[in-house]
């Protein structure tokens, strides 16, 4: 099965990543992708994600394995950035390829809900030159409850 979980410390090109993912999967009828990027606006000058190497990538790989078990997929790709990013820069790309559209949508949606709430990333953002940590969000817990 095609696909992988990657933790990158440098910028990446999501369109190119998606092109490479898709070209290997002519047997898939549908490919759903989610791209998360640093939002422009609200005075945010930069976003920094820190990770803890011994936990972060293994947990991403474990999540990818769970997604593959739960849905019938032809391929799954999970790319997550770490480090400092500026507005408009990609943070995360998830792509799920499946024979059936519903499987691809559900797998990408599930992967994002769990990446957002479970992944070992700590975020801070820079506003007016000051860094401040971003706390957990209630919405993420509600998103997770959808899959119980």
């Amino acid at each position, binding site marked *: 099965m095609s696909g992988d979980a990657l933790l990158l410390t440098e910028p990446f090109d999501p369109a190119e990543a998606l092109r490479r993912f898709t070209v290997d999967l002519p047997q898939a009828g549908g490919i759903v992708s989610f791209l998360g990027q640093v939002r422009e606006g609200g005075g945010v000058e930069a976003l920094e994600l*820190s990770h803890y190497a*011994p936990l972060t990538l293994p947990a991403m790989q474990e999540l990818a394995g769970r997604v593959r078990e739960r849905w019938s997929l032809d391929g799954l790709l999970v790319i997550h950035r770490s480090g400092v990013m500026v507005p408009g820069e990609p943070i995360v790309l998830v792509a799920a390829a499946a024979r059936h559209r519903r499987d691809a949508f559900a797998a990408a949606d599930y992967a994002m809900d769990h990446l957002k*709430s*479970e992944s070992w990333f700590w975020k*801070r953002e820079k506003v007016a030159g000051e860094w401040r940590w971003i706390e957990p969000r209630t919405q*993420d817990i509600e998103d997770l409850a959808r899959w119980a």
Partner: protein
Amino acid sequence: MALTLVFLGRLEDLAGAGSREVALVPSLAAVIAGLEPELAEALRGPRIRYAVNGTLVQGEAPLADGDEIAFLPPVSGG
């Protein structure tokens, strides 16, 4: 005979650095007790998790020379 402590997220600000070395002591409780009071109190918070050498631990864990102990606050939302 030393331990490496790793502070993630906002704990890094409280500790003043992302990591530090401390002398070997036999337990997590003893490690925390040896730190500055404000930091120690934060590390005892109910939502802080611990990992020893990259493995999450519940409550206590025996410690040995060279162990890396990570203090993990809740991860940030999306």
